[in-house]
């Protein structure tokens, strides 16, 4: 039986930049992002795929990074909350969450914002019902969700304006 390597060395592409990293092969994408790349913006609430807090985008699709092995991510496009802002300015989703109360304790916020980004990238005209459906896997204990939905709807409007 071939020995399992202690650490893997590979190159991930995170937020548009190449990130060489070495980690134990059993590690999840969540763990590698947080522990080996220092990107602690992505949170964890269960590490069992139940809460949505660790959502990041993999090739544009929202995934639960606690359920993805990092070694499967080589050559794929990883997007996290750290890469969302536009330089010094906030992305419309970020601004709307901050302005409209979409974020209270802020712990579920990165996961739900990334989920919303994936939705709006695909469906810029998402209705409130579609927003609720897309974010139903992101648990939040503070807001009661309404201000999250409102924030995503406002950001969607702004993004549509920008696209015009």
């Amino acid at each position: 039986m071939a020995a399992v390597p202690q650490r893997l060395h590979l190159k991930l592409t995170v937020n548009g930049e190449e990130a060489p990293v070495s980690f134990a092969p059993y590690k999840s994408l969540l763990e590698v992002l947080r522990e080996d790349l220092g990107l602690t913006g992505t949170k964890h609430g269960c590490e069992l795929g139940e809460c949505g807090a660790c959502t990041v985008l993999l090739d544009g699709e929202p995934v639960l990074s606690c359920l993805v092995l990092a070694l499967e991510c080589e050559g794929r496009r990883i997007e996290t909350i750290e890469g969302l802002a536009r330089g010094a300015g906030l992305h419309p989703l970020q601004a709307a969450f901050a302005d409209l109360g979409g974020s209270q304790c802020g712990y579920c916020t990165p996961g739900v914002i990334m989920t919303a980004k994936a939705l709006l990238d695909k469906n810029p005209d998402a209705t409130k019902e579609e927003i609720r459906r897309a974010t139903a896997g992101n648990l939040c204990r503070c807001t009661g969700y309404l201000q999250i939905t409102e924030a995503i709807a406002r950001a969607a409007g702004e993004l549509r304006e920008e696209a015009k």
Partner: protein
Amino acid sequence: MSAAPVKRRLEVVGKARRRVDGRAKVTGQLRFADDLALPRMLHCKLLRSPHPHALVESIDVEGARRHPGVHLVLTKQDFPVPFGIMPVSIDEFPLTDHARHVGDPVAAVIAVDEQTANDALGLIQVRFSPLKTISDPEDALRNPEPRIHDYGDQGNIHRNQSYEFGDVDEALARSDHVFEDVFFYQGNTHLPMEEQATLATVEGDGKLLVTSSTQNPHYLHRQLARVLQMPGSKIRVVATPNGGGFGGKCDPANHEMVVAKAALALGRPVKICLTREEVFYQHRGRHPVLMKLRTGVTKDGRLTGMHLQTLLDGGGYGSHGPASTFYTGVLTPVTYELPRFKFEACRTFTNKPACGPKRGHGTPQPRFGQEVQLDKIAERLNMDPAELRLGIVTKPDSLTANWLRIGTTGLAECIREVVARSEWKKRFRKLGQGKGVGLACSTYMCGAGLPIYWNKLPHSGVQLLLDRSGQVTVYCGATEIGQGSDDVLATIVAEVLGIDTGEVRCVTGDTGMTPVDLGSYSSRVTIMMGNAAMQAAERVKAQLAEAAAEQLEVLPAGLVFSNGKVFDPASSRSMAFLEAIQYAEAKFGTLGAVGSYTPPRPPGRYKGSGVGPSPAYSFSACVIEAEVDANTGWIHVPKIWIAHDIGRTLNPVLARGQVIGGVYMGLGETLMEEQAFRRLPEKLSQALVHRMPSMLEYKSLTALDMPEVDVALIEDPDPNCPFGAKEVGQGPLLPVMPALANAVYDAVGVRIDEIPVTPDKVLRALELKNSGKNPRIGPERFPSVPYPEPVFVVTPQEGGDGKETKREERKRAAAAVV
């Protein structure tokens, strides 16, 4: 010379703004406890008891100690000193040799990484000697032995108490009706999104630094000093912003003590982050409460007296239990006029994770009971439930039968508001076809009038520093748990100084840098921290005004601080706020001030009168519409109307968020959330285990389940509160549970007298209804509880002095009247 008394319109207070910590939260820059890492950091894992009740006969840690990568193994013998949040319930050891629930930690491993620590846990050999499991309060009453703790009122009763304010039997005897109901409220848990985490290290100065997801760094600081037997001055506690608290991070916790001890022993940073399953074992959530209400009413719907009995399932430790026990009764007379009140409460120890404070702390349970009972009373008296309530709301500036001082109240206005907005009169008893509306009200405190440990010190302290750069930095021990604590602090300072909240830097929750604030609990932060901040800001403002007036050659009393300027309306002379700072720094030296706040002394003088008093009370009223499917029992909630008496809104975005968040949590408790337990089969251990320690199985509402919520903030500024602002974090949760139960009754005519109100209960009740039986699901009886002889206190209305009247004195007084 005093500060300017000139009134101007509020510029910051009441305006919708981005919260001061908003940007950090949406960029992922905010550091929660588990986001922190230090060089040479080690990781800790705890070995938890698989038995609900057992003694550790022996524990062999040699295998774990020798395991590669393990640096330290700790057990009970490393922790001779116990801790506990309340001085009367110091009953927990960081690691125990007497497991009181499944999940109680008995050993800890500190290793290079979590994986290694976990592996080493499996090498620890523990021989447990199981004890009889006490599974619920009646079990605890039946079985005084084996005792879960060797302290408490008797056997497995932790707290047992009885109070009588005026002669309740006499009041009930002369009532037109006496209503007797038994209710049950199941326990549930906070389920914060952030799992608790703590990082301990020894700083360069040789002192211990404990950085933790705690709501109460001050109390943790005190308990660390106790457990580690170190002076508090050698320990610094930093509360990281909490990823949700809701009361679950109020208690000092085992894991915090363990990593602190390990970091001291090893001289290296040690971190722990609980798994989600462990968060369920840490718990400290809502107590399951069985309660009985006997309430006298007149035929025109006025209450004459109430005899309230509660029985609490406390779980394995004291936690905040002594306070929780009081809170299952003491606020009951604050909502509606209740001339006489008898309140008996008993908290039992059981072999489950300890219950403690969850949003509303002890009060949602009796509130549910009273509001459902009022619905029944209104129906019997043929009165509209809203009208009945409007006739009995408590008056402003009054004293309750149990000697609580009510200041302002907007309850009547809250009721009128939700009645109008929901078109209650068009809907109640009129919707038909499985649709209904229900109404309920509530009250909450704006901070506990007394601290958790007895002292005469301020409850909150604030320090303010200004310098020639224009920087305004405010320091306070208060803790940001998502509720907006930092934003409240910045708002109050900014409003007083006439600047923007963006100009204020908040440094909070750090016992090494910030003045003491007791913590984020009991809805105390806005009022207590706010008043302290206001005092500090007014003091600095007086200095600024004096220096600016001298330069402008005007009188300081006429100066107005507004929009980043200091100006004199009479002469139209002005200067920038920054200039005023520089002149003041030149005139007085380094600029700064402190402020502090201590609540007013409560009027009650009897033993136990310290729980319940508050500088102010908030009030809420709620209407819920429900649609009940008679085939499935499924309850759909399309809309909720809620009005909250907030005194004054500091930031409407945050206030609305707190109200909706409270409604959400209340609705989850009502419909699905349960911290429930089951017995393993006999062939296994028959252990009492958590039924569902995961987020998938512990159901909570999602974005799809959340109804529309119409929020009305009722503003009637309270003179005891900063700019009149009352609490909003806890109150709005409280009326939701009974409003929903009352709506279900309006919809399909069945009473679910217990929480949660689940489809299976609705279906069973409908079956009872269809077979002509009493269509009610709920507890059938209240057990015999050996409550003590009541402490008797004459009410304020009957000429009492706030002190206990002994039985002999009552007899003598009665004889004298005859």
